[in-house]
């Protein structure tokens, strides 16, 4: 634990917006990071741990006056509320959490993926998504992980051919 990490706090997922607004009112004006960890193999339920990292930032002196690491446990039902009205950057960070983990936000039903292409099915950073599972937009139709490196027939394939 170091100064950049901040002390850990746990909040209930249903009231994340209230808890985070209270923290913002306390002076935590910068959202440093918003991420998620999947604890499926460890059998935890709810399986996801969403982490908000906040910082009290003094704009004039450029000083970091304290950080806090806020954890809340969710599963993939839309329970969390978006905090993009408190910190505008949360928009993209929540999109990334949805894209990679499938953690839905209750007031963002039309959330869009950030990193993967729209047609991708599934959520890549979940522990039950195999890393080599391919869903190519363009390329070999077979989506399975090849058993040996690249002995495929090498010719360009276009979707629809």
């Amino acid at each position, binding site marked *: 634990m170091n100064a950049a990490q901040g002390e850990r706090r746990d909040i209930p997922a249903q009231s994340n917006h209230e808890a985070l607004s209270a923290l913002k009112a306390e002076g935590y*004006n910068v959202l440093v990071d918003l*991420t998620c960890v999947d604890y499926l193999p460890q059998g935890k339920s709810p399986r996801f741990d969403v982490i908000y990292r906040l910082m009290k930032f003094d704009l004039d002196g450029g000083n*970091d006056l304290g950080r806090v690491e806020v954890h809340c446990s969710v599963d993939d039902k839309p329970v969390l509320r978006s905090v993009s009205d408190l910190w505008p950057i949360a928009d993209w960070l929540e999109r990334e959490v949805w894209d990679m983990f499938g953690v839905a936000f209750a007031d963002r039903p039309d959330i869009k993926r950030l990193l993967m292409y729209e047609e991708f099915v599934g959520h890549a950073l979940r522990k039950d998504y195999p890393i080599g599972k391919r869903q190519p937009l363009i390329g070999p139709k077979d989506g399975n992980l090849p058993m040996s490196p690249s002995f495929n027939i090498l010719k360009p394939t276009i979707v629809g051919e």
Partner: protein
Amino acid sequence: MSERTQKTYLLNMGPQHPAMHGVVHLVLELEGERIVDTKVEIGYLHRAFEKHAESETWNNVVPWTDRLNYVSPLINNVGYAMAVETLAGITVPERGQYIRVIACEISRVTDHLTCVGASAMELGSLTVFLYLIKAREYLYQLVDQLTGARITTNFTRVGGVKGDLPADFAEKFRAVAAKVRECLRDSDALLTRNRIFMDRVEGTGVISKETAAAYGITGPFLRSTGVPYDVRRAHPYLVYDRFDFEIPVGSTGDNYDRYLVRMAEIEQSLRIVEQALAQIPDGKHSLEPAEIKYAYELEDMGKRGDTELISKYAAKVDQTLEGMGKDAAAGTRAPNRWATMPTKEQTYTNIEGLMNHFELVMWSWGIKIPPGQSYSAVEGGNGELGFHVVSDGTDGPYRVRCRPPCLYIMAALPQMLNGAQIADIIPTFGSVNMIAGELDR
């Protein structure tokens, strides 16, 4: 009577830019030349760094981190290694910390040189690009001698660095620093008071410090708005608190200020490396044997069975492991045997060293970091580069999260571009220094 309607025009910039910035997609809604709205689409270089890190061992993640911010790879290496060491409670010896600082600052210089060079080229100044890439080339050759590779350095290990500084590093650095400063002087003379350059970059891409803070922006971007926040000062890590360096700060938050901040930071980084090379402590190794043989000779002896003779010699490693000076080896690695790889001299000269090495590299045996989570931040080329590492006690990370500084800047890009002209996108986007490897991971 026909009604006149005003229509906006949608223009795609990207995903393939002519500028060497990487892949990002801007969907611009234009009214003539004026931008009404911008949508930024990223993810075209998503290479699953975080997913791969979960299936690797602790040290094996380091090459993946090289490719995050690929213009300053050593900073990523150091950031990740520090996060793991915080979790494990390992302290790197002093000489190792100094070497890490030197590596980070050289990487920071290459980052800023590339950024300023590329954005100058897009504004028409190919000469400045060639000068700064020439300066970067000297630094790449230096990095090559230090780490073995120009760009994908794979330099840090948990507990230390891969190898010591080469013997003549300090003189070489002095020569290189003189050449880099000369290139900077020439580029400065060509750009800083250049009417055309100033017309393009002054007053464009303005962001206020409140907006920057709301978006979590750090680094040269935030410093150009007047906020003197630098992770090296706010949360000093390694041995940065022993150096005397300034934090250049702008005032207006436009592209001109960012250019000036970056140029000033290059100078400060060179100063830090000079101070580090002056202050670096010797890590005298206590190896006594009078005779030195090449490591391959010792291997051959071992295969022949002359194992008693081996312990009488010290190993001299060949040029592919250049940088492993026998004297300083002790200073570059932490003494934790369960986590830090033994030096090559140990591996090749005695059985304990060999066993130690073997156990640490064998799959599912290796370094085991105690369960827990830690976040630690370093000052990257674009801002606060953080690594949040979760361990479950096995030989590889459970989860590695990289906090990419340029994601925050890219999210704020619409704030800077809306209302501007198309021609303002070029200097603004150049000063963002978007590195797709870091943005999309």
